[in-house]
């Protein structure tokens, strides 16, 4: 029997023992832990659950290292491309001129500032690029991550690498990104261009984006979740 402790801020109906994050954070439980949370951002509750498990010496999914690295777009793309996931060239800068020098418009700009959450901008003109970079970089104090925008941007939910999109390549990308990042619940940002799929980024989910049918899917993965720690 697959037996781990699931720590979750979502109401799951899995057959495995489950604890709320607030209960787990006060407990000295020694077990394998699967941290199921909509948001693993640095210094948020989901992050502290993984940290607590690591300090106790538990095996935990995801690790604090993975929590930090998955949401930092350049790190995610670097790790993904080394893991064989198709990615797009990216540029880290605080200068619109630098972006224009490297890429043709349109471009997609991700903020790298600590104070922004789930934001990105697709920029089609030079004037909007200046405005977008200023906004997303907190007035050039932080950098942004810019990538060329090839075509369609697909956003899909991924639960333990299972993505319920009808495109096989998107499903395959979700599975491979999970193998690299180990983030149980997330939103993947993928670009599709001429039948090719490229990973763009990974973002936390808002709690209201997780539907009842999603909860059933997550519970099902956890109930037959053997191999999650392999």
């Amino acid at each position: 029997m697959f037996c781990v402790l699931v720590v979750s801020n979502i109401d799951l109906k899995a057959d495995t023992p489950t604890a709320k994050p607030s209960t787990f954070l006060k407990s000295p439980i020694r077990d394998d832990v699967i941290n199921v949370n909509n948001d693993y951002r640095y210094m948020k509750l989901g992050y502290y659950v993984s940290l607590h498990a690591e300090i106790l010496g538990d095996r935990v999914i995801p690790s604090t290292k993975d929590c930090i690295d998955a949401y930092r777009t350049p790190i995610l793309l670097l790790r993904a491309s080394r893991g064989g996931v198709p990615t797009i060239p990216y540029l880290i800068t605080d200068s619109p001129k630098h972006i224009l020098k490297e890429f043709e418009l349109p471009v997609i700009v991700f903020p790298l500032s600590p104070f922004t959450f789930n934001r990105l901008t697709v920029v089609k003109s030079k004037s909007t690029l200046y405005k977008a970079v200023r906004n997303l970089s907190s007035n050039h104090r932080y950098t942004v991550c810019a990538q060329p925008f090839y075509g369609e941007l697909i956003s899909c939910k991924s639960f333990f690498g299972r993505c319920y999109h009808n495109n096989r390549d998107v499903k395959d990308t979700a599975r491979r990104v999970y193998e690299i990042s180990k983030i149980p619940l997330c939103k993947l940002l993928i670009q599709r261009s001429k039948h090719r799929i490229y990973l763009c980024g990974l973002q936390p989910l808002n709690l209201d984006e997780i539907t009842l049918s999603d909860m059933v899917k997550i519970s099902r993965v956890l109930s037959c979740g053997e191999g999650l720690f392999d």
Partner: protein
Amino acid sequence: MTRIACFVEKYNFQHSREAEALHLFKLSAEQMGHRFDFIFKSDFSEIPSYDAVFIRATTDPLYTSYLVSKTAWELGLRVVDDPNSIRICANKIHQYELFGKHNIPHIPTLVISRDEIHRKQIQEVFDLFGRPVVLKAPYTSFSKYVEKVACETSFRHFAKRFSRRSDMLVVQKFVPTRFDWRVGVLNDEILYVCKYMMPNGGWKHGVKRKGKNSFRWGRTVALKKKNAPSKLKETALNACSVIGHGLYGVDIKEVDGEFIVVEVNDNPSIYRGYEDLWDRDIYEKIIRYLAA
């Protein structure tokens, strides 16, 4: 020859002593036959062309410095500060949990969740530690986001402010001392020892000027390493051993002859004439470590 990139931001050159120290790093590296370039955030794509990266800009997992460190690390470059040290040192909760686990003597500490900040909990904190207590955001650095609070109103005020970025906060017993020891450590070896004095009327090394954005800093008094208490050096090395083998600045309080760790900082300040006063070789030692 090792190609060393030193990641800095403009503010690293604002204080003349810090700027001088940075130029001493460059000078030492070049005298040792290495290349030493300052790189800024716009030079990110240049990282793969170097053999080692030395980070002097403020570190935090959410800043560009972490991206630099992690990218260099993933590419197999030698890095100071390495991503693991940044991850642990930038989050004081992580650090105190490790100190607790490994029995490193540290200031009595409580971690509280943002949701637990209510009258009963605050009263329990005051009952446990007395008044005032020190409230810390986990991401504190350079004396910022650390406040002394003695009543429920100010506790709530600062807790609300600090919890904008973190769901958990640190509460510590207030331990007043005239100075904090600062011990510089590199790769399990003591680099330098100083005293960070509290400015007049202050209880921490940096005190914010009223109505201004600037800080008033206490003096830095450097000591010869051999004259520093051996128990101090031992405590500093033990504290660093639970974090990693990089470059750290350990803050320690001396209370009744006992040494208790306040915190371990990655990316410690190195200013010419302060930390290096008795240990001019710190530049050479750090460069040698990067070039190894």
